[in-house]
């Protein structure tokens, strides 16, 4: 029996359970669901690892008539990271939502819908299906942002919604153009048919702009910090770790699978340029924040910029450098997902413990809530790209690609970006070591639930462990030949 549909059916079913039976202990039930989901994901991962990529025709209708789902190395990697982070966030939420009764009732249905939509996007092989997936992601994510329904989150959520819808329109417009020009929505068929011409360029431009808005790439980033900074901690973690990656993933897929040959190199350099702007702008803004969640949110803006560097490194360069760039980019997706979710979760604990969102309120907590601060630090190591960590490996691969292809300007960006990251991470640490604040009696803290501290530490530990186990996902990513030959065989 094929596992692919279950990755969608399980979360949808659990969404219905949490929606219809709110009196049941839906938190623990959700944890059970996450176990089932993780098991299914693990089995699919193994199957792809052993037998190569799988294609699944829904409703038994072949593309272009029907919709095809694709599970290749990249897909299963993302499915796995999604299941993993979602599980830890769910566990964290069990403790966190105790102090948010109202939100808890609607958190779980939205959580499951979000998970279903993310899985749907990772698996999708069809451009319009991706659009539907993006819509579902958007609505679930916006819903989670405005769960606490106060003035700030409502404003942030609405702005997020508008920008996401704008992005959707751009995406849809491009997809419509591609469909009208080539008569198919299936990505693989499109890849064979697509040619460089005016229609293709306009369509890809429109799609790219739409997705850049949704990914919050500079200069379309402004909706992200208030939305991610204002949401509940587990929500922020899911949003920063996974949701923004979904639109980037589509962008990457389109370029990697469909448009690699039809796009001018100048576009790729342009993408890199806005990525560099994002890195520096996000970094400087993060440095200026005095609320810790906003700092972390701006850090996401900056980190997303690194993803954009993949395009100039991968487009128009030698195959081996292109491969390095893709591996680095995808590793960065994973590493950032782990590190940023760990960071948001630990920050959530810290905020809960000191009862304030201000960075100054964290004065002298280094010995009061050491585990959460340690988790923050480990996550920071990965974000700074210091070894050993997933973030470092990603940076290393990108550096190799940039040096190898002689694109020294990106080398400079990569190096300076890490230093900027270090400055804002250590801004938090500097405060936390402030002994005078302790002596003057500030920094009285509540005890944090152990489950919350442990969740953050676990994810942060994984972000570091990815520094040692990066070969696993990278090998899965670099199996395109196996994938295509198997696909031919299955036809």
């Amino acid at each position, binding site marked *: 029996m094929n596992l692919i549909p279950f990755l969608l059916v399980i979360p949808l079913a659990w969404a219905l359970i949490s929606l*219809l039976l709110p009196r049941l202990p839906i938190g623990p039930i959700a944890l059970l669901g996450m176990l089932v989901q993780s098991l299914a994901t693990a089995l699919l991962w193994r199957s792809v690892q052993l037998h190569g990529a799988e294609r699944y025709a*829904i*409703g038994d209708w072949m593309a272009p008539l029907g919709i095809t789902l694709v599970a290749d190395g990249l897909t299963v990697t993302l499915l796995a990271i999604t299941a993993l982070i979602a599980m830890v966030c769910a566990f964290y939420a069990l403790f966190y939502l105790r102090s948010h009764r109202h939100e808890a009732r609607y958190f779980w249905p939205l959580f499951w819908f979000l998970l279903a939509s993310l899985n749907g996007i990772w698996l999708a092989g069809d451009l319009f299906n991706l659009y539907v997936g993006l819509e579902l992601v958007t609505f679930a994510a916006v819903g989670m942002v405005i769960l606490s329904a106060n003035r700030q989150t409502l404003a942030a959520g609405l702005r997020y919604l508008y920008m996401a819808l704008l992005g959707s329109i751009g995406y849809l417009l491009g997809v419509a153009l591609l469909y009208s020009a080539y008569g198919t929505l299936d990505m693989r068929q499109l890849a064979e048919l697509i040619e460089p011409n005016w229609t293709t360029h306009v369509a890809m431009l429109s799609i790219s702009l739409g997705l850049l808005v949704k990914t919050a790439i500079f200069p379309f980033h402004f909706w992200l910090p208030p939305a991610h900074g204002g949401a509940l901690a587990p929500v922020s973690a899911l949003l920063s770790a996974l949701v923004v990656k979904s639109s980037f993933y589509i962008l990457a897929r389109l370029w990697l699978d469909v448009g690699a040959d039809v796009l001018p190199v100048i576009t790729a350099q342009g993408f890199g340029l806005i990525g560099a702007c994002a890195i520096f702008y996000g970094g400087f803004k993060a440095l200026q924040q005095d609320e810790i969640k906003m700092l972390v949110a701006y850090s996401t803006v900056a980190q997303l910029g690194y993803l954009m560097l993949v395009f100039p490194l991968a487009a128009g360069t030698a195959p081996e450098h292109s491969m390095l760039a893709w591996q680095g980019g995808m590793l960065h997706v994973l590493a950032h997902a782990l590190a940023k979710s760990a960071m948001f979760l630990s920050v959530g604990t810290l905020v809960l413990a000191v009862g304030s969102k201000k960075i100054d309120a964290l004065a002298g907590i280094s010995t009061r809530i050491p585990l959460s601060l340690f988790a923050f630090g480990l996550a920071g190591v990965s974000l700074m790209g210091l070894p050993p960590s997933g973030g470092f490996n990603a940076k290393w691969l990108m550096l190799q690609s940039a040096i190898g292809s002689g694109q020294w300007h990106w080398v400079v960006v990569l190096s300076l970006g890490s230093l900027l990251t270090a400055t804002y991470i250590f801004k938090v640490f500097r405060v936390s070591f402030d002994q005078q604040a302790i002596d003057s009696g500030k920094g009285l803290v509540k005890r944090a639930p152990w489950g919350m501290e442990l969740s953050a530490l676990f994810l942060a530990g994984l972000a570091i462990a990815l520094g040692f186990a990066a070969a696993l996902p990278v090998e899965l990513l670099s199996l395109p030949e196996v994938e295509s030959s198997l696909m031919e065989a299955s036809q």
Partner: protein
Amino acid sequence: MNLAFDVLLGIALLLCAAGVFYSRDLFRAVVMFIAFGLLLALVWVRLDAPDLALAEAAIGAGLTGVLMIDAVAHLSAKNAHHQGAQFDQTGARPQLWSRILPVFSAVIIFILLLGAIWWRPDAPVSLPDLVAESLPESGVEHPITAVLLNFRSYDTLLEIAVLLVAVVVAMALKPDTSEPEAGNSKDPILHGLSARLVPPMLVVGVYILWAGSYMPGGAFQGGAILAAALVFLKLAGFGIERLADSLLRIGLALGFIVFLTVATSVMIGGRPFLTYPESVAGELIFFIEAMLTFSIGLILFSLFSQAPPPVAPTSSLQGEQDER
């Protein structure tokens, strides 16, 4: 003649859009938007997309207009509390660039799109032909319904999920304690009107659902009409929004549950996800559609009714308007 009509329609549509965009009076913008919806339905007609025209007519006339009027009433009620606050003053006077920039970008987008369509290559694959070819196996006769409920039913499944998520969010936003609508006395005129209008609405809704299997129509359009009927009842003062919460939730999710259950249970026979057995495909699709109609109607209605009613209908709006 065809061209003349279309050009006129296009101009009217643009005028309407400009009216919505440049109106500083919110209510005027809302009415403009209602008109815009109608013209858009006509455009769909001219583009040979009667399904979309039907949906646009049902949603535009029955729901979005009401929703917006409601929103304007909310805003004016809120502003009435603040002394001297102007109803249409949502902020400072718009900057010049904020008026020019949209026009400028619209022109650029227009030019790009024009080029994209002008130099569009001929599609090497014709999907409509493929749909027509496979129509006999789909269980329905109308190609749109075949695409929505069979060939690409997965998309539809997720779209229903989107609707469900939207309504969950609306529920989450509703305060735990909401007061019953003030001034909810049953207006005799509205009461009488509803007795005459609601039954035909329901009949038309079911008809549109039924028609979907062989001509334009289907679950979404039917559901929208159903929702409109419910909205009408609510406006007329029937307290139908006070359904028991759990009952409402089941109703909202029913269509999705049925859809998902059918989609999954066919896999027991070894078929892929969402593969209807050909012998009962038509019946299954109609069953799913019927449940979807019901749920979509409830969902769309809930999106409207979850919002708390305006605090107190104001007459200040009227006075302020009359001064112009």
